[in-house]
């Protein structure tokens, strides 16, 4: 049975154990609901690292306010719903419905004016295909001007509640900072009691600013992300790092024909004027430069794409004669949004069941800690699942391999890294074979590998840790073979 199924069984046992215990029953009900709801992905990071912009880009709609200054003051959940509704939840109270207001660049609730720390969260329901895949949680910045905002974020993400709020975290950085590392370390110090680099990924946000907005800025940002991917310390904190130019990413989802025409007009300017125009943000809106193009349109484009986005769009249109739709696609690709969505899809959505099961296990353990049950059935069940579930064995293997406790030769290590970093994904991905591989060939490959790792596990010279690791690998391949 899958881990997900085993956890559902555990929940049934727990419900029987806690009959007549209203508080525990309510918690269990919440855990059960969690299991069938979409995956919850929190977007966290320091102040002004571009969390809200990234959230808007991921949904493709202007939801979270992203002005100058600190705008995200409350933890805000954006989840799929049948209609446009909003709720506020005060500490220890039932959620109250409030009026949802659509503004030009974000949504807002009325009545507003809540004091910092007064609300546990705001919940916005929004009919969106993207949100049906995962609920997105926007958070106030860590290291915030108001220390309380930062603390409420930590409390939300590091989970002092009975159910842990997020299943996975997208951590946005400008440059990896001491406090980022501390937070990520704390983030991983939960349920399983040790780091868990599977459920978090690092986004180098505002990637366009790294290279001072020059056309090659994304290359520079990609190099920074690459360096983080290789850094052993970072590898223990997040599964991978992606560079995203948040503003361009969001802008690509909102691009209209009108914007496209403005860019076309720019490409028709003489080279000197074009260069003058895109020299700085003040030049873009300077009426003395390129008087043929309406300043209001220029300003709108600047607000939408930023200076780097305008430079990039102008170059793309001038060189490729792109239409509006083609330009939107090109911008999405160049901004890194496509890559981020691919990675989120692979790392989080595809293994949603494992991540949710893991969250549920953590919640169950906290529940048992708070209200010790009278019989041992539940505790024994939790222990059995934790020790027995192959998914957990694989996660432990991942930690052992990344932490350096297993002795393997480089090819073996590469193979195991591929296997464990793709926990919860389809067989093709996990084997690291080309996607077009023939099913028979795949099965043949699996059988070969199972034999090799079985032998590796039974070698008398192997030390216990390596032998254990080898049998976990063999067991994983057997599981894949059974599925194929």
């Amino acid at each position, binding site marked *: 049975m899958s881990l997900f199924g085993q956890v559902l069984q555990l929940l049934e046992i727990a419900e029987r154990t806690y009959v007549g215990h209203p508080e525990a029953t309510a918690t269990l009900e919440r855990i059960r609901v969690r299991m069938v709801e979409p995956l919850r992905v929190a977007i966290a990071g320091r102040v002004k690292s571009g969390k809200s912009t990234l959230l808007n880009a991921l949904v493709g709609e202007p939801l979270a306010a992203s002005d100058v200054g600190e705008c995200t003051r409350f933890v805000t959940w954006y989840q799929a719903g049948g209609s446009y509704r909003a709720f506020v939840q005060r500490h220890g109270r039932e959620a109250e419905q409030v009026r949802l207001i659509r503004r030009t660049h974000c949504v807002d609730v009325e009545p507003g004016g809540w004091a910092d720390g007064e609300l546990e969260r705001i919940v916005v329901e929004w009919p969106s295909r993207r949100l049906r895949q995962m609920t997105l949680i926007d958070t106030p910045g860590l290291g915030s001007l108001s220390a309380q905002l930062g603390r409420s974020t930590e409390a939300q993400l590091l989970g002092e509640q009975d159910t842990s709020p997020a299943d996975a975290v997208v951590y946005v950085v400008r440059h990896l900072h001491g406090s980022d590392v501390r937070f990520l370390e704390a983030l991983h110090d939960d349920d399983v009691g040790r780091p868990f680099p599977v459920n978090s990924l690092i986004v180098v946000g505002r990637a366009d600013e790294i290279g001072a907005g020059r056309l090659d800025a994304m290359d520079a940002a990609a190099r920074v992300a690459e360096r983080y991917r290789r850094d052993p310390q970072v590898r223990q904190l997040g599964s991978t790092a992606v560079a995203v130019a948040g503003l361009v990413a969001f802008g690509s989802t909102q691009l209209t024909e009108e914007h496209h025409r403005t860019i076309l007009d720019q490409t028709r300017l003489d080279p000197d004027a074009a260069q003058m125009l895109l020299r700085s943000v003040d030049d873009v809106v300077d009426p003395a430069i390129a008087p043929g193009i309406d300043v209001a349109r220029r300003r709108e484009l600047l607000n939408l794409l*930023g200076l780097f986005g305008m430079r990039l769009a102008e170059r793309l249109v001038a060189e490729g004669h792109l239409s509006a739709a083609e330009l939107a696609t090109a911008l999405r690709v160049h901004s890194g949004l496509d890559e981020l969505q691919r990675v989120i899809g692979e790392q989080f959505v595809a293994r949603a069941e494992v991540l949710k099961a893991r969250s549920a296990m953590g919640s169950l353990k906290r529940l048992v800690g708070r209200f010790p049950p009278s019989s041992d059935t539940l505790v024994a069940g939790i222990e059995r699942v934790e020790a027995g579930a192959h998914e957990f064995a694989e996660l432990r293997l991942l930690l052992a391999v990344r932490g350096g406790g297993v002795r393997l030769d480089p090819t073996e290590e590469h193979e195991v890294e591929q296997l464990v970093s793709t926990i919860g994904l389809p067989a093709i991905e996990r084997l690291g074979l080309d996607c077009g591989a023939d099913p028979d060939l795949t099965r043949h490959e699996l059988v070969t590998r199972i034999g090799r790792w079985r032998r590796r596990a039974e070698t008398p010279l192997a030390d216990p840790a390596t032998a254990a690791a080898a049998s976990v690998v063999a067991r994983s391949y057997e599981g894949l073979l059974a599925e194929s």
Partner: protein
Amino acid sequence: MQRLEEREVPTETTATAAEIASRLARLARSTARLCGRTDLIGRIERIGVGIGDPNTRILVAGEFKTGKSSLVNAVVGHDVCPTDTDAATAVATVVRAEPAPCASILVRRGGGDLEMVDVDPADLGDWVTEDGPARHGVLAHGDELVVAAVGVPTDWLAPGLLMIDLPGVGGLGSLAGAATLSAAAHAHGVVFVTDGGRPLAADEQAFLAELVRRRHHVVLVESRIDLHPAWREVLGSDREVVKTDTDGCMAVSSELLNLVGVDREEGIAALRGWLADVSKDAGRSAGLRLAVFAEQAGRAMRAPLEAELAALGEDDAPGVLDVCRAEQQRLRSAGARWSQLLSDGFADLAADSDYRMRERLREVVRDGEAQLADVDPARGWGGLASGWRRALGDVVDAHFVLVDRRVEEIARTLARLVAPDEESAAALGDELMAVALGADVGQDVAERDLALGELPRSGLGTKSLVLLRSSYSSALMIGFLGSVIGLSLAAPAVLAVGAVLGTRGLMQENTRQIDHRRQLAATALRRHTEELATALGKESRDRIRRGQRVLRDAISAELESRLRTAGDALARAERVAAASAAERASRRSAIAVELRRVDTLLAASRNVQTILAEPAR
């Protein structure tokens, strides 16, 4: 004679602060000699020490990647500091005007010796960012790059003006932050650079507040205004935050100036103007301190003369005598208590700070051991060591901040005890803190002279470089220890252990080896934390002892001088009460001469204070 002296009263504003101040010091000394107050002469000299410094040091500080190096390049009009989109500046770079481009680096060899090496200015990027190829062959294993210096032909830096491009500060609590604060104590001004795309974050604000609290000249620069559409709003909100405490905010775009020669908002021009002002102003604060003291000294000399004059007038001799006796009584009772307060305060400080430091270090060790449970040190060593280094750095930082604050508290308590009213207590407290800080500066200067004894003097400002280095000494101590930790475990120990176990038997269990490595790593951490505790304990005991000695001397000199003033006044009043008419007349005219001299000094020191109070702009 007297006319000549009076002409020295510094009134004209064309003279530099240093000239004005040294003239005032001469006047104060000669007046003290005339009034027979030789005890004041030494103090005047001690307070005037900083006046003749030929260099003006300006730090360029800020978070990582806010464009500090680009800003320096824009200010001098040359590409001197390497700017990279990824690698950040890792070592402080000193930029100054020179007729021809040149560059040199200061290396601390593994053994601790300092050496100045001339390098090609074009290779500077290799030196100031991590691990450039030019380092090979010059830096051996264990050598450490202390600081890089570069000379550039520019008209924008005044002679003697040093712009020091610092590595990024990662928040107030970080090691680089502590080092910057410590370096700022010896600097004449700080340029704090922040990204124009976002308002100052909490830790940046805290850092600025700390700079301002320490009374440094700070100017805030918003960078990259070419890139951020909302820079005006950001500037507005930052101005609100820092409005009264700094020398101002300016918005700049280094990129535009460096690429197309446009100084948008004339921010760079404004910054150059500020630099020129600070440079002209150098020595101003030292001069101001001297002027304040000269005024106090003048009052101290005037009091006995006034008392005597009053007694000579015979109008209220008993009243004058009572006032003199009461003041003498107050000072005597202060004299009985201050030394107890001082030694208690410092004993508490030493015990407290040592206890807290050891407690914090124990925490680092505990956390470190917990971390070791999950990893094989042979593989995860880089991450572990850098994490530990950071944690240990934080301990050092917190420790010295604690010591500084407590010394300040003690100084202010003592000042309140000795001074007759709150206002003069605050002034005396400031003076005592300046003296305590001066003790560390003095120590650094001594170290500097020691270190430079054998060095060839390179064309660049070697002295000030080393002065900067010694302000980093606490930070470097950690860096050094950190590399020792890394060394003893990452390479020889692990290899040796592996080799020994490997030859003894292939059958040895791998886990046992990992456990062994974990033990080694834990032992290394414990041992080096212990060494750090010893080194830090010694350093801080020295610092505390130095502070105590300096404060003791300062307070006892202050009390002695006040007591002497009071006693003098009393004695004169008593003597006058018994003197003949003729004696009184001749005494009156002698006093008139002395009083005129003292009044001249008083007027001059007040005048100098007015001239120096406002920056010359």
